[in-house]
């Protein structure tokens, strides 16, 4: 009895510590899903047996002119996490909202060299690199972290629909001339899709902001 009385505080501390450790060890780390089509391939294990491995959908090689009229490819995003979207500069509907939100995110991660941004224009007629440059400057985000790219209709539209899973199209009945979805697509350093967020929805944009660090932490391991 005397012993317990004397060591009561130490005991309480020990119990608390044990409880905390127990609780934290149970918490599973949040991991982002991997989207897109999957395939399998047969691989040879180190012990000579055969196994099956998953092949995830990845963003294929691309080459586009950026706002400085310089060709950029996947190499530009090597080892980095990036957020891709599709827009056009004369768009008055969802693009301003998407880019208002994306700009806010870019400011939050401006000191992190592992986070980049890639906006593709779908207006292959008007949005030449010089127009994109002006747009980037006016949006206030002109720099190497956020690339605005211009490419031929076929390559950009195919990339959008087949690889980033974002619908884009020319629509002559629309006032702006084009229709597209406002997804901000999160790509990991292995070129896989790890998230798609509606860039016009504040809640989903907030989720994107929370998910970027999760993805970055995963790459650290």
């Amino acid at each position, binding site marked *: 009895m005397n012993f317990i009385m004397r060591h009561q505080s130490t005991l309480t501390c020990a119990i608390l510590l044990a409880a905390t450790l127990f609780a934290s060890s149970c918490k599973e780390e949040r991991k982002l899903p991997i989207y897109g089509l999957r395939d399998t391939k047969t691989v040879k294990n180190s012990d000579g047996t055969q196994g099956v491995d998953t092949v995830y959908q990845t963003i294929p090689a691309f080459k586009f002119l950026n706002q400085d009229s310089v060709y950029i490819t996947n190499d530009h995003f090597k080892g980095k996490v990036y957020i891709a979207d599709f827009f056009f500069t*004369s768009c*008055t*509907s*969802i693009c*301003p*909202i998407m*880019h*208002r939100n994306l*700009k806010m995110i870019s400011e939050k991660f401006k000191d992190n060299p592992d986070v980049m941004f890639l906006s593709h224009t779908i207006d292959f007629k008007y949005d030449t690199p010089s127009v994109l440059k002006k*747009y980037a*400057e*006016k*949006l*206030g*985000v002109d720099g190497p972290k956020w690339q605005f790219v211009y490419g031929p209709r076929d390559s950009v539209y195919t990339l959008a629909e087949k690889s980033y899973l974002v619908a884009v199209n020319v629509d002559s009945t629309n*006032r702006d001339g084009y229709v597209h979805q406002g997804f901000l697509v999160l790509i990991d350093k292995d070129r896989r899709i790890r998230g798609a967020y509606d860039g016009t929805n504040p809640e989903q944009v907030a989720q994107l902001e929370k998910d970027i660090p999760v993805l970055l932490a995963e790459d650290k391991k």
Partner: protein
Amino acid sequence: MRKFTLISLVSLTLISMFYSCQTAENVQQDAYYVNGRDLYLKHCQNCHGAKGEGLGTLTPPLTDSIFMKANKEKLACIIKNGISTPVTVHGQVYEGKMPEFNLANIDVAQLVVYITNAFGHKQGMYTTQQIENDLKNCK
């Protein structure tokens, strides 16, 4: 004493009744403001922002009271026909192009009431009649 309390209570009620009554013009202005807010959400907020803050130097903010006051007669023309000439707001030149919005005169009036009374402005009522006159002088 009781009489005094009674009189003061009655007069207080009367005074508060008088002050709670809005003038007809106030009621109309409030109606315009509320409808104008809905129209703003639908047509303007994408670019000009929820707080009228604009977007970079792509879209000018609507928070410059001096600009709003000085250009009030031009607002109807700008909304209805769009604008492609540069404007200077808060000392910053904005060169972008604003598209035209084909709205009825009363909608334009409601929008003007909203944008000149929200975002820290307090510029009062603007009637559909005034909008009609302004639209005759569009350049």
